[in-house]
């Protein structure tokens, strides 16, 4: 009897607030529109875009992607730890997430600075307009992500709070920052 109800209970739960999922899906559509414009104009003038893309360092892009994927891993672990009541482990995981995010931030700014120093600014070519625009708006989402991680820390630190729903909601936002980067990285750095 308990097995059956257990299976049914485990079968379905919405991770975090459904409201956050609505935001995630909507924001993904908006980003898809940005990507659509990028791909359209890229396909129309490939040489210009290829020339710009050649100035990028793929290795930094790969490294940043791995780091951000790691941050998703740690925040997912945080959710699971919190769910079983291992709050100290969950806190540690959220700090790892923030550390990964900081590393990403650092390398992104470093990359931008290097590009600008070499004369590739946001208005130097259409490719770089899209590059700085997409990575820039993603960066803004990342900064908001720090606030969101702050909410998780705030929730986990005191026994009076610790809303699992809120932790899951924040994690959902964080994963969005991650998968948007996955798409941005593929489109800016790797696509030919």
């Amino acid at each position: 009897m308990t097995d059956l109800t257990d299976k049914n209970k485990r079968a379905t739960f919405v991770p975090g607030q459904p409201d956050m999922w609505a935001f995630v899906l909507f924001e993904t559509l908006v980003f898809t529109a940005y990507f659509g414009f990028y791909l359209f104009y890229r396909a129309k003038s490939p040489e210009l875009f290829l020339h710009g893309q050649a100035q990028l360092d793929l290795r930094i892009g790969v490294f940043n992607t791995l780091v951000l994927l790691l941050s998703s891993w740690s925040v997912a672990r945080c959710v699971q730890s919190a769910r079983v009541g291992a709050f100290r482990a969950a806190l540690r995981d959220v700090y790892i997430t923030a550390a990964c995010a900081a590393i990403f931030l650092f390398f992104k700014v470093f990359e931008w600075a290097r590009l600008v120093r070499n004369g590739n600014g946001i208005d130097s070519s259409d490719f770089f307009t899209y590059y700085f625009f997409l990575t820039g708006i993603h960066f803004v989402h990342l900064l908001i992500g720090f606030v969101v991680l702050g909410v998780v820390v705030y929730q986990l630190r005191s026994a009076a709070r610790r809303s699992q729903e809120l932790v899951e909601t924040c994690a959902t936002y964080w994963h969005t920052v991650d998968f948007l980067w996955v798409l941005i990285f593929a489109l800016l750095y790797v696509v030919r």
Partner: protein
Amino acid sequence: MPLKFNKRLLVVWVVLASFTLAYLWIDHSVDGSLRPNAVVTSSVIVIALIKVRIIFREFMEVRQAPALLCRLTDAWVVLIGVGLFSCYIVGLTLG
């Protein structure tokens, strides 16, 4: 219990990381030529969409979500794919 889940999450990360590293290999195989390549572009986009779906299902726990959310996120992956490919193809035709 947490250990079992953590192993799964780690495996997921390794899979995603491998896909990411595969990009390095793809890039290496077309290295040097500054020419547009629709095959590379298409496969890169498809791999990215696979990664996004894995993130949805494993990291964002959609696997254990109600059917509606599963279907919505899958539909979204398809939607992103359709959006990207149609813009790319229209751009290619008009270019």
